[in-house]
């Protein structure tokens, strides 16, 4: 019998679950021999209230040694699922950047979420007079939280999506009762692009024209995208996305936007990036939308509605 494992997803997109599948053929022995999956809405039919939906009011997830949760916490049902998972699982893993730092849905933390959620039901295509649903659907919390703001988390695997190799490593390490070997550096530290010194760059460009590179030559022959004048968040982003040597976005010849979150678990990518730009003599006011530098790490109070933020600064 394998190690009992439960999977859950909260405010998420299922990209983390596809990343698990992308472990590929090695996943077959993991799910058939090493693990005994007892609950996982995306692939199996275990239900919260009994298999016929007529057992009790309290949501029930079976006990498991390992719990893996993707997504952040943004409504009261997520909260209930998260607390049940913590109660039933010995080791709880936060999978993906939504779970570790809020991820893209936490962009909502930067604005008045109640008004925004209302407006979603009053668009150019919705029926006149429609209002936000409020019957039997979960209630939204005041903002989107990372998992460790609500319960104790034993292991963080960031990334949007997380790297399949790291998911497999984390599982195997747990089975072998050792610490997993995971990256600790920044995207920049692991990037093969050529650095020639900062040169004349003193503002950052929007990515509306392609980088300069020779498509017939490897990434190591392309000049660093920051040095080419693009906003690239490699210096302030945790490494881990690389699957074939170069960071994933750099492989597509596109600058990094920080999807693995801050290098230190609770760092602030915006402050770190502003420092990185300033210390290189680049005017950070040339960044068009500075708040979206926090687009993957808006939990932990990093993104707040503008008005509130202004008051606190005053």
């Amino acid at each position, binding site marked *: 019998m394998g190690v009992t494992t439960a999977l859950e997803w909260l405010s998420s997109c299922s990209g983390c679950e596809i990343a698990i599948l992308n472990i590929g053929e090695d996943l077959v022995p993991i799910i058939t021999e090493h693990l005994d999956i007892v609950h996982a809405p995306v692939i199996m039919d275990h239900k919260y209230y009994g298999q016929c939906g007529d057992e009790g009011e309290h949501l029930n997830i079976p006990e498991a040694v390992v719990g893996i949760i993707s997504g952040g916490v943004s409504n009261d049902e997520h909260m209930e699922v998260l607390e049940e998972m913590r109660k039933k699982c010995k080791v709880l893993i936060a999978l993906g950047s939504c779970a570790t730092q809020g991820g893209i849905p936490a962009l909502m933390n930067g604005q008045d979420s109640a008004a925004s959620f209302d407006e979603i039901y009053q668009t150019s295509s919705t*029926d006149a007079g429609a209002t936000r649903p409020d019957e039997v659907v979960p209630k939204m919390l005041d903002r989107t939280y990372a998992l460790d703001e609500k319960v104790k988390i034993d292991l963080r695997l960031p990334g949007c999506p997380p790297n399949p190799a790291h998911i497999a490593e984390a599982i195997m390490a747990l089975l072998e009762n050792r610490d997993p070997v995971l990256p600790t550096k920044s995207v920049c530290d692991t990037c093969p692009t050529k650095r020639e010194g900062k040169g004349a760059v003193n503002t950052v460009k929007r990515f509306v024209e392609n980088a300069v590179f020779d498509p017939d030559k490897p990434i190591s022959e392309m000049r660093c995208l920051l040095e080419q004048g693009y906003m690239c968040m490699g210096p302030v982003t945790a490494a881990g996305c690389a699957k074939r040597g170069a960071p994933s976005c750099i492989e*597509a010849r596109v600058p990094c936007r920080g999807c693995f979150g801050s290098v230190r678990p609770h760092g602030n990518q915006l402050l770190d990036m502003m420092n990185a730009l300033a210390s290189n003599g680049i005017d950070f006011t040339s960044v068009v939308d500075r708040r979206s530098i926090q687009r993957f790490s808006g939990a932990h109070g990093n993104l707040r509605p503008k008005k509130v933020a202004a008051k606190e600064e005053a």
Partner: protein
Amino acid sequence: MGKILNIQPVTRIEGHARITVHLDESGNVEDARMNLMSLRGFEKFIEGRPAEEVPRIVNRICGICPWMHHLASNKAVDGCFDVTPTPTGHKLRELLQVMAHINDKILHFFFLAAPDFVLGPDSDYSVRNVIGVVKAAPELATQVVKMRQLGQMMLDRFAGKAIHPIAAVTGGFSKPMREAERVELLKDTQTLLDFSLFALDFAKNNVFSKYLDVISELGVIKTGFLGTVDRADGSFRIYDGKQRLMKADGSYVDFEGVDYLDYLGEHVESWSYGKMPYAKSWNEGFSMDLSEPKGIYRANTLARINVCDQMATPKAQEALEEFRAAFGRPAQATLLYHYARLIELIYACERTIELLNWEGITDTDVRAKVTPQAGRGVGVLEAPRGTLIHDYTTDANGCIESANLIVGTTHNIGPMNMSVKQAATALIKDGVYDQGILNKVEMAVRAYDP
């Protein structure tokens, strides 16, 4: 006093939903609904963002179909900035769109839906899943795992990221394709085409013929359909074309995606976060009444197969002819979504090969000149789960002023509710129900691949 069955979570689907079945005093179905439980707010939190960044934010709407959001968003941004992608940029985008459809269909049919058919709808929940399939049919399962992985890694190797892609950009594409990449992709796609022909044969022999009774009854409703067809000859299209809105009687109107607001509206119910699109242009309002639905049409595979005049590739056309001879046009049986899905799988492979053989595919002129500006753009294409619409307006600085999204799955929320009610009413009588019966109710949802 009646009783409420609370089937939660709905499983082997992408996302958070619950089915509630209301039983009356004698144990018969009074009402049955599917509630969508999640709300994230993409339309609002992309406001203020530089438009060229949005295609790499909205891909997070869905981790299974991130390419479609990425590409529809890029089309919308092109519209805002009044830029036409270079011919190669345009074709590379379509290539990634059809390639991404390939592994999506393998994933849905074999990983999510197949357990119901391979192990049987009434089998115990603990084995009725992909792990059970691996144990029951190891050879098939190993092949399926390999093929899905191959499709996913083709995207990953060429475009850097298969999940939450970044390689399409306003004006075209971020990098050209090299000849060595083209040759390798061509070889891999041939493997996938062979597999897709096998998959349809397998399903015809082991699923569609075996479960004919279930197919002709479970979740069956009568509705209209929405899809995309070629502007010139009405052929099946998933990247670019005109929209076709068909009534249940087979009559239809064609329109350009940019005019969607004249044809589609969104109804809101107080008990589900999912908005429910309907055919506003039919001027009959919205009703999910089973005997007399109003404004209800369906999207996704069966809809696309119904609205097209023919498939634009040979093997897929052969499959369509056989399908139409058996089930007519438009076909209404809900479980035929699975059959249509496998016809689309063949098309996606064939179209990928066509595009890889297009003479300009390795040209290096992949991105047109782009200037951020004020404007409006509507990007429309076919996501696996239905017609996807991204509609943006930008300010003078090229940042998003407002956005409206109609996401593929949502077209089918009304119809899924109807199929759930139809299935529950037919299957639950006099208070008799069990996990197998309730799983069949879920199968009516699963066919739509929400």
